[in-house]
């Protein structure tokens, strides 16, 4: 069968790609668009390493077909830093050593960004619940939660 032709927006840029209908959005991002920041951990929506934002909504790219992206707006980890300037969440993850092996980090950053866009002043409990779909086997989560709370404070101007 002919490959599907999809027109979408990725990190603010218009993007066209061809894909097989079986390919997930994650397959397309990594293998067709060579945006390899989003990771495949479980491929079943459990680990959050492939977290992306679609039309303002946090989702797992492994649970969406690439063809479903037609006409939608997708934000990935590659769109997070402004050129050479890291996003405050990225800076705080480094400061707090909120990563070790790094595989979960893009997903955590995208998920945390989505949280702070909706709730600029979350409690620790709210951070932990929001990020419950992102698994990390290195850090024990505490440093991640502290980094997110610290970034939130900085982004509020405090």
């Amino acid at each position, binding site marked *: 069968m002919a490959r599907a032709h999809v027109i979408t927006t990725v990190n603010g840029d218009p993007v066209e790609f061809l894909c097989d*209908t079986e390919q997930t959005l994650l397959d397309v991002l990594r293998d067709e668009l060579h945006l390899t920041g989003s990771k495949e951990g479980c491929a*079943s929506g459990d680990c959050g390493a492939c977290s992306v934002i*679609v039309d303002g909504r946090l*989702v797992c790219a492994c*649970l*969406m*077909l690439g063809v*479903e992206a037609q006409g939608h707006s997708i934000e990935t980890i590659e769109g997070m830093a402004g050129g050479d300037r890291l996003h405050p969440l990225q800076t705080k993850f480094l400061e707090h050593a909120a990563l070790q092996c790094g595989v979960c980090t893009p997903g955590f950053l995208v998920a945390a960004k989505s949280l702070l866009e909706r709730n600029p002043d979350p409690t620790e409990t709210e951070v932990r619940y929001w990020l419950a*779909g*992102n698994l990390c086997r290195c850090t024990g989560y505490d440093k991640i939660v502290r980094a997110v709370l610290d970034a939130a404070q900085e982004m509020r101007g405090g």
Partner: protein
Amino acid sequence: MQYEAPESVEAAVRLLSGGGPRGRVLAGGTDLLVQLRAGVITPQLVVDIKRIRESREIREEDGMLVVGAAVTGAELGEHARAKSMWPGVVESAELIGSTQIQGRASLGGNLCNASPAADTVPALVAAAAECRVAGPNGMRRVPVEDVCTGPGQLSLGDGEFIVAFELAAPPPGSADAYLRFIPRTEMDIAVVGAGVNLSLDESGRCTAARVALGAVAPTVILAEEAGAALVGTECDDSAMEAMVAAVRAACRPIDDKRGTAEYRTKVAGVLATRAARIAATRAREAR
């Protein structure tokens, strides 16, 4: 695999009843994509219903709440009117999965995945929700409890799909609640789920009650005798005891890694009691 994203109910029915390979309906995809990836299903046709307006919107029609089959848990949870009309249905949807899953998972998908442990289904059954089912012969209404016939099995015919759910305007003094038991605080599959929807008159006497249970039988069940045990009472301790006895009598669970049949039967009574108390408290506040 052929992928189609029709923009009308009629076009979706044409695709699903086109005489070709039987298609699979795609809503949020949180179950379907996992099954595709695992090779559990290998459909030749997938029909995405998310571009159909009726499947994607929440609206009120003559006081009734109509929730599209592909409306996400997050959207339902953010809908103040839905939450005030049917708090139990909304809390059941919000219990499912992580933030990421909430951004995609839908009522229609949760029902049609046909798991006995689906969280929204006991709440929808307790709420006496009806499905708007579109098919080659037009639209028909099907009570939610009649959709699943066994694990992974649906009563829907060829070419049929669920477009939306209808939830009647709750009468004054009515409310619902849903509780489930899982061994941790978040993101797990129900060991038992219990949905209760009841109405109280001005004196606090129960005039109607529906109790539905998940994960204690091959499908979600409506425990009619459990609801009947509450009607005419003030939902006091002795009425609750009678309700619990009827709940436990209705349970036909299996033993599995999540819990034994005996344990599930016990927990079903406990959860139904707690859900009934929450529903009764809400019902008094709603009056």
